[in-house]
């Protein structure tokens, strides 16, 4: 595609929300933009959090700057990404063992940050949120909500493409090209075929999340990250209408975020070595902690089926020797390495949070524009994401159904077209046509990528039938070999299993055994020929 021939204005490293957000902003300001991601979109902290649309109240007491950023961005996201956001408000509840004094402190702090916070009567709280712990002694209502990070990333990605950005996933940066104290580009390796290429860019933006320090080190620059692991549980029913927070200093298992028809309980906070960040797994101890604290918020959780356990790593930037990372600011860190380290053409944007990704992108892009002497102002806070996305969807759908021609026996086009509306994934209501579109468009190589883009296999059954159905389409529409598709299917199931094996009890275990009966017993996927 000649990526190495072009010279880009800006090369952004990292396909998380910060990277795609920055790519959108840069592209909207007319910069020749390239985004590089070593794996797939949203594979780091972006896809592994509770999807909270923060009001900022959680930080109001200890970190008022972050809190003020949160509420500003909260209101912006409701406007620009309404299709990714659920507005349902949140409660901060006090239990008998909590100091009610903290409630007043919280409300006071919220108000000074511009966060609407209203003390409501515990009886009123029980009326509007019937599953809340009836022992509550106080409640504060704040404008929390939930946001679907996968859709948000996809919307930004499509929008960036619409504005002319080039995007390369499965391209890992292996070196920065430096000349006379200036970063002039990157050396990347295509992780699918191991080809290496050099790409030139005037400015390189390091938006690699927890891996930012690894990228910076390639340029001989030190950033000390503080990898803070957070474990979360997804429950199979939406037990609460609103976000429920515990009204005390931030601690383990003190927030319950409803989204769609599930509820997510978060989270723990433990420092982990950077080497563990590529494969974080949830431990029995973390599950015990989450359940112990979560059932205090909503007692019925103790008998609610758990769908999955998962964990992410917060890309915090270290400031002191804090043990768990709760005291570290969630504030944004935007480093101009020219000023900081005497290394021109290199910027790191890190810290922050999902909620403030747009502001992070704006800050990084402002810095890029400043260096390139580009005067155009940021418009990401006013131009909605879905407007462009709809157009992009149409552009993609022109390629629709072309893969059907490779299906033998197709003699009745009308028949097939109507069959497109069948659900391939019944839990998440993903249609056959939708999956075929994506595979035919060449945008997805694996079932796991399909899952991130469509939510296929993310529902109440862990890919029971849809995984094999989609694997078939990878062969017939995607033109891959059955060996590759069989291996991909096994990988997909194993990846889903990662979230299931730590919580194998009740219905989850019954379902897990059923899943094994289908894929091992009936199908013999474990004996599938790989030679």
């Amino acid at each position, binding site marked *: 595609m000649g990526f190495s021939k072009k010279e880009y204005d800006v090369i952004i490293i990292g396909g998380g929300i910060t990277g795609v957000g920055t790519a959108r902003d840069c592209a909207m300001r007319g910069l020749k933009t390239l985004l590089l991601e070593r794996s797939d979109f949203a594979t780091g902290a972006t896809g592994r959090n509770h999807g909270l649309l923060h009001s900022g109240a959680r930080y109001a007491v200890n970190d008022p700057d972050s809190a003020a950023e949160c509420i500003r961005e909260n209101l912006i996201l409701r406007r620009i990404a309404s299709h990714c956001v659920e507005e349902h408000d949140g409660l901060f509840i006090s239990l008998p063992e909590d100091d009610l004094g903290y409630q007043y402190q919280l409300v006071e702090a919220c108000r000074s940050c511009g966060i609407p916070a209203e003390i409501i009567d515990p009886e009123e709280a029980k009326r509007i949120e019937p599953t809340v712990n009836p022992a509550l002694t106080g409640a504060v209502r704040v404008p929390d909500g939930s946001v679907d990070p996968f859709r948000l990333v996809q919307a930004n990605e499509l929008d960036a493409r619409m504005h002319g950005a080039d995007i390369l996933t499965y391209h890992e940066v292996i070196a920065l090209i430096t000349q006379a104290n200036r970063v002039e580009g990157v050396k990347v390796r295509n992780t699918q075929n191991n080809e290496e290429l050099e790409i030139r860019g005037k400015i390189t933006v390091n938006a690699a999340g927890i891996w930012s320090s690894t990228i910076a080190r390639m340029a001989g620059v030190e950033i000390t990250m503080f990898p803070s692991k957070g474990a979360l549980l997804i429950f199979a029913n939406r037990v609460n209408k609103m976000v429920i927070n515990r009204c005390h200093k931030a601690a383990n298992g003190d927030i319950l975020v409803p989204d769609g028809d599930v509820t997510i309980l978060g989270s723990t906070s433990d420092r982990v070595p950077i080497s563990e960040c590529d494969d974080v797994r949830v431990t029995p101890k973390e599950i015990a902690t989450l359940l112990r604290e979560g059932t205090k918020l909503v007692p019925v959780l103790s008998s609610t089926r758990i769908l999955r356990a998962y964990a992410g790593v917060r890309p915090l930037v270290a400031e002191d020797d804090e043990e768990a990372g709760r005291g570290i600011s969630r504030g944004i860190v935007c480093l101009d390495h020219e000023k900081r380290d005497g290394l021109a053409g290199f910027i790191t944007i890190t810290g922050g949070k999902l909620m403030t990704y747009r502001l992070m992108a704006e800050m990084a892009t402002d810095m890029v524009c400043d260096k390139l002497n580009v005067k155009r102002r940021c418009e990401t806070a006013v131009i909605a994401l879905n407007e462009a996305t709809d157009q992009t969807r149409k552009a993609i759908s022109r390629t629709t159904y072309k893969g059907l021609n490779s299906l033998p026996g197709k003699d009745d086009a009308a028949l097939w077209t109507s069959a497109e509306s069948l659900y391939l994934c019944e839990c998440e209501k993903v249609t056959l046509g939708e999956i075929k579109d994506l595979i035919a468009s060449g945008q997805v190589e694996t079932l796991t990528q399909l899952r991130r883009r469509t939510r296929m296999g993310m529902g109440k059954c862990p890919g029971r039938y849809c995984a094999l159905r989609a694997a078939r389409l990878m062969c017939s529409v995607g033109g891959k070999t059955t*060996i590759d598709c069989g291996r991909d299917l096994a990988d997909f199931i194993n990846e889903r299993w990662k979230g299931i094996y730590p919580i194998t009890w009740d219905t989850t*275990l019954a379902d*897990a*055994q059923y899943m094994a009966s289908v894929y*091992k017993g009936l*199908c*013999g996927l474990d004996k599938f020929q790989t030679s």
Partner: protein
Amino acid sequence: MSKEYDIIIIGGGLSGLTAGIALQRKGRRVAIATSGPSTLNTFSGSLELLGYDSRERPIAHPLDAIASLPPTHPYSKIGTDRLALLTQEAQALLGEAGIMLKGNSAANHWRITPMGVAKPAWLTLDDCLTSDDGTTLPLSNATIINIAGFLDFPVEFIRAGLEQMSVHTSICTLPIKAMQTRRNSQYETRATTIARIMDNDDILHDFADAVSASCTANGNSAKQMILLPAVFGPTGNEALTKLRNQIESPVYVIATLPPSLLGMRLQTQLRNHFTQLGGKIFHDARVTAGTIRNNEITSIATGYSETVEAERYILATGSFQSHGLVAGYRRVIEPIFGLDIDTNAKASPQGGLATGSFFEPQPFMTYGVHTDDAFHPLKSGLPVNNLYAIGSILSGHNTHHQGDGTGVSMLTALAVAQEIEQSFPKP
């Protein structure tokens, strides 16, 4: 003090029905209480005796391999010689129920899975595609037929598996007009949906014509096999017989993703046989509790708060997926009687019921009720004398990795039926 039933069997899956038939045909008065679907929902078309050894290598002669199983395996409790006799009895029982099968217990044959993998089998429904040696098939040419819009028959994988066995294979997808008009829900793509549509002579006739036409297009019809998804006849094999009569080429079916029509057919035929022998089935009767006094069950209760009494009881409620076993956060229980649980598992690194790789043998698979050698379950360390456990609720084996699930179900059922028969006083 005559009770209404001699034996009550809790659970109407493969093991419960087998025990029911075996006892009913000896003239006992048997009732089966059943609730919910059984694991026949995922039935492959084959019964398996013992497919793989401890290193997961395929076994050619299952009866010879049984001697080397650990003493905790249910087969070891039955004993090799007795087990061999019971395999004959199982085959006879299935024949009496009108179930046509191929295979024998002396040597495994191979079934072809929906992913085109060959797996060892003991007895296979006559209509299904099998291989004698796991490397060759009856003919060297095949046409796999799928039905347009049916997602649950992975033809691409089956073709790849067949081609590895040197069978030249083509795929043909046939539309069925009726599927269009009948489809009024986006969910309706299951095997059972197609079976309902095919339960119509005209549609079946047209389908057979279309199949014949497509194999003519693929060359000499006598020299190729027609492979269909198992989407016919939840009650019997009449539909397939009709297709066979109309199609010149040999026709075989391959299992689909669940629900398994082959399993539904097996279950229906066994149920019919049991009731024809005079047995009684209580549907939707979830047994919720039992009263145990002096190591004997005195009565059991259903969800409708009815209590029922019998001389002997058989527990055939299955493993976790059938809710015969229930895992709590801290421990595993048997929910009806609170029987002793045998974990039989080496502690996993996480200390949990499962390990981090789906494809490894999972510790939870070997969990089950702890029994003595006569399959009396233990409660607080003592056997419950008039209770027997059979099938997947038994501990000590991993059906996914040993390939012995349906064999354990049928053979422990027959072994227990013998024990019970001997336990009644001779007239």
